[in-house]
């Protein structure tokens, strides 16, 4: 009996996937759960296990082809009653392989969102509203006949604030043949990751009222400790002790003092959510081939060392592409470590639905005027650097931003971290 393997929906908002590589050929015998192909979607790149046991009779899509969720991928001739398909998997398969056209009862279609499709008909008003409100229609669930997006769908989507919900980050685009920096006259497709970054950046700019504020920090206190433990730390942990864990810890403490900075602000829904956990987002540069925000869940439960390790591990995972959805979603505040690229001052874009993002800037030795206790001034050489905060003026005002920044600064300058490293 012939069986069809279809493109799975690997996430609520995924609508399509690209076939990266076939792992089987026509004629191959495959067992249930054997990997049969690799696919890349908006969210992850993954191997697809075969839901059936049988012989491959035809491959229905080419490598590199992008198809909609639910599209037929491969035909198998074999046993349909294979029992070891998990309940969840069978449920998923049922959903994605259900031929929508055959669903005649309108009610049924309405009650269960049908797989979205990019080539469904869009009415003039939906097109207009989507364009005016910068709505990604792939995010909107259609309740009209055949899954069509109606005016009501898009309006409730807009008023629910869904458009400002953070879209989890993508995995690294694996198509290495696409040049990172094409020659000036060369043109080509925009990679999936680049597209997602672009959409998120624009969406954030259109959502929040971005304001950038910065303070100057004297890192001498941190630098003394860091120099002292640098060598032993590297030997003990296998990675360097940077400024970032210190800044992260100071930030976590400051977030506790100013919970509004660790919040989400939804004007359309009229909801201001204060997050009980601090899920610290760390922006990770994928070797100049994209950017992802790794999430340190419940970061306020980590020690300095633990934080340092977690940052190092997460960065590595993201760069390798071996992470799951949890690693790239759910942050409540984000740090962008621009100092590692020798920045002086940066004005980062807020990672939605956060209300602020901190940019660490380069730490350098600079001449600083020091006032002694007796009131005399002298010039000293100190490690200093800027800390910049881009914050959402919708959620709070400048005083909070500066109190928050100065709280971080104060902790970095005055805390005794030595216990943390012993």
């Amino acid at each position, binding site marked *: 009996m012939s069986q069809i393997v279809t493109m799975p929906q690997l996430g609520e908002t995924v609508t399509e996937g690209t076939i990266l590589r076939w792992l089987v050929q026509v004629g191959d015998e495959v067992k249930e759960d054997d990997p049969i192909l690799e696919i890349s979607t908006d969210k992850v790149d993954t191997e697809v296990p075969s839901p059936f046991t049988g012989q491959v009779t035809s491959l229905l899509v080419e490598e590199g082809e992008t198809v909609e969720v639910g599209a037929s991928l491969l035909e198998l001739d074999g046993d349909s009653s294979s029992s070891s398909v998990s309940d969840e998997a069978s449920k998923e398969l049922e959903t994605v392989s259900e031929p929508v056209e055959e669903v005649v009862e309108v009610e049924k279609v309405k009650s269960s969102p049908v797989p979205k499709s990019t080539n469904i008909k869009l*009415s*003039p*008003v*939906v*097109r*207009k509203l989507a364009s005016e409100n910068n709505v990604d229609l792939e995010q909107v669930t259609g309740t*009209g006949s055949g899954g069509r997006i*109606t*005016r009501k769908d898009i309006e409730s989507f807009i008023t629910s604030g869904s458009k400002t919900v953070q879209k989890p980050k993508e995995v690294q685009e694996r198509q290495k043949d696409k040049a990172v920096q094409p020659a000036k006259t060369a043109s080509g497709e925009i990679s999936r990751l680049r597209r997602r970054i672009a959409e998120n950046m624009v969406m954030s700019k259109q959502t929040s009222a971005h304001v950038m504020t910065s303070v100057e920090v004297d890192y001498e206190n941190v630098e003394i400790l860091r120099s002292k433990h640098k060598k032993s730390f590297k030997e003990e942990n296998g990675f360097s002790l940077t400024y970032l864990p210190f800044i992260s810890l100071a930030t976590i403490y400051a977030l506790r003092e100013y919970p509004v900075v660790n919040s989400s602000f939804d004007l359309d829904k009229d909801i201001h959510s204060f997050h009980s956990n601090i899920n610290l987002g760390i922006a990770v540069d994928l070797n100049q081939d994209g950017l992802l925000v790794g999430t340190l869940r419940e970061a306020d439960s980590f020690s300095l060392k633990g934080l340092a390790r977690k940052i190092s591990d997460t960065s590595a995972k993201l760069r390798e592409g071996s992470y799951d959805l949890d690693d790239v979603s759910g942050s409540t505040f984000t740090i962008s470590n621009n100092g590692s690229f020798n920045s002086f001052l940066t004005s980062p874009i807020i990672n939605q639905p956060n209300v602020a993002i901190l940019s660490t800037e380069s730490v350098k030795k600079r001449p600083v005027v020091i006032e002694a206790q007796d009131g005399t001034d002298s010039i000293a050489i100190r490690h200093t650097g800027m800390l910049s905060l881009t914050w959402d003026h919708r959620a709070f005002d400048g005083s909070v931003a500066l109190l928050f920044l100065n709280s971080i600064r104060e902790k970095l300058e005055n805390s005794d971290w030595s216990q943390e490293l012993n």
Partner: protein
Amino acid sequence: MQIEKITRQGYSATLSKEVLWDIYKSMKTQRLLEDRLLKMYKGGQLSGAVYPGIGQEACMAGIAAGMDSKDIFGGTHRDLGVQIKKGVTLKEIALNFFGKNDGPSKGRDGNSHFGVVDKGTLMVVSPLPDSAPVAVGWALASQQSGSGVVAVANCGEGATATGTWHESVNMAAVLNLPIVFTVQNNQFAYSSPNDTEFGTPNVADRAAGYGIPAKIIDGNDIYEVIDAIHDSCEQARNGNGPSLIELVTFRHYGHAGHDPAEYVNDEVRDFWMKRDPIARFENALLEEGLFTTEHFVNLTDELEAEIKETLDWAKNQDDPDPNNEEADIFALRTTPKIENSEDNKKTMNYIEAITNGLDELMENDENVFMMGEDIGVFEGAFKATKGLFDKYGPFRVIDTSISEGGFTGAAVGAALAGKKPIVELQFYDFVYPALDQITTEAAKYHWKAGKAVPMVVRGPTGAGTRSGPFHSISPESLLAHHPGIKVVAPSNPYDAKGLLVAAVNDPNPVMYLEHKKLYRKPDIKMDVPLGLYEVEIGKGKVVREGSDITIVTWSGMVSVAEQSAQELEKEGISVEIVDIRTIVPLDEEIILKSVEKTSNLCILQEDVPFSSVASEISSMVAEKGFWSLDNPIVKVTPPNTHIPFAPVLEDAFIPSAEKVIKAIKELQ
């Protein structure tokens, strides 16, 4: 060539030398002008057409000379001579021939197709004799007001074969109106001789069939024409009714400039050339010793120079503005909207509101009067004129013969004469015979002749009464297609009275469509203010607020829409209903605004679908409201067929709430 003699005996014998010279001068002007125009036409210097009346100058000048200056003339394209004698200037004529902006028709019609109403000549149109019913209406107005004005309705012998002429003469005879029907029998209707046009030996023989007096006169004898016209006009002026005068004459040229008239044999032509009206008049004037040949020669020289100069001048005058094509299609209302200051209200059904409106309108303004079949003593087929005959009498609630074209055209003439006529069509299905008058005359008068035509054509429309295909139409699309007429279709008693008052006070022809199923519908009874008030023409109304879909409808379908909305509400679909109330001019704004709100549009109409008001609204929204739409526009209409009698068929024909609900649910 021996010219036949004429002599003056009757009224013409009393005319002074100066009056006779004026008459001669107008005949000579016509001949020289038309001769010049014909030459220009043949030489390619004149667009359009020339319809020379050369040979018929005595008819034309004589008709005008026999009339009083205040009398009104309704004629044809071959009556330039009448227009000249009535005072229309060479400049006006020349401007019209060149289609110039300052001409009587502002370039909207050419050559001799114009009238100057203020000088006593009705607008000339091509379908003949379409000005005859208009002249009848002017005579009717004269009879009502006692102004002493007589109308002369003129045409050629060919046009007397039409129903329009018959209805006109018959109505005038029945109503004993001050009108004279003249027929210039110039031997040919275009190319057709008399025996192909009528079965009696003479046109005048037909008068017996109408019970009116008739004369056959020599149309080439200026004195005989003047006398006959004068006598008939005076008879009419004195209340002795209409008469018919056949003026036997001959057209020297063809029907128009392009027609060599080879159908005229030499014998006939020779016979008539001996009776050339100008030569005969000149001989008579010479014989009486009133003028000399030198007078005639000098006048010819003067006129030729004046004509040439005028034509040269006219050629260089301003053309009309092609960017302003829609100007003048409607007359602008200058009187204020009538606001009701009374608090008194009375519960009325739809037809009571109409009757009440008619009554108050007639009481308020003695120029308002009604015409129609069986509307007087019988009080109308649906009793819309109940009590009005008793109150206002036979001169203001006029029972007419079965002549829809005749009395609708008469309404045009009465309106031009200052009245506010309301015509009742017993069933709006009978608008078809009236359409010629509505579209040729009523719709074009303001546009082409600059004269407002405040008239109302009202009557029952709509199906649902088991009345079959000829008592059930919804004519709004048919009417709305014609520029220059307004169309209203009220759906409830309040709007019915308010729109009727607005229609009567509008300076334009308004087609007022009543729905016979609504006449006595108990559930739409409502409080209607006593005293005049208006519902503005061209303004729709949101009669039910909703958010999911707009139903645009009017007249009898409004209650179907309401019923549908109530059902749909139970299923969570919120319907907004726009009762447009007026078809022309359409309230586009209210429709677009509602569609902007709901994003969905259903147009519900009782009229058949093809090329209809629903099509127009659909097209308009697709053009102007495209970016508001969330679904295809849906039309709920009857099938594209005639209205059937059998109850099962008729019920299936008329859009029902079930059909509306189904159509809307399919959209969601």
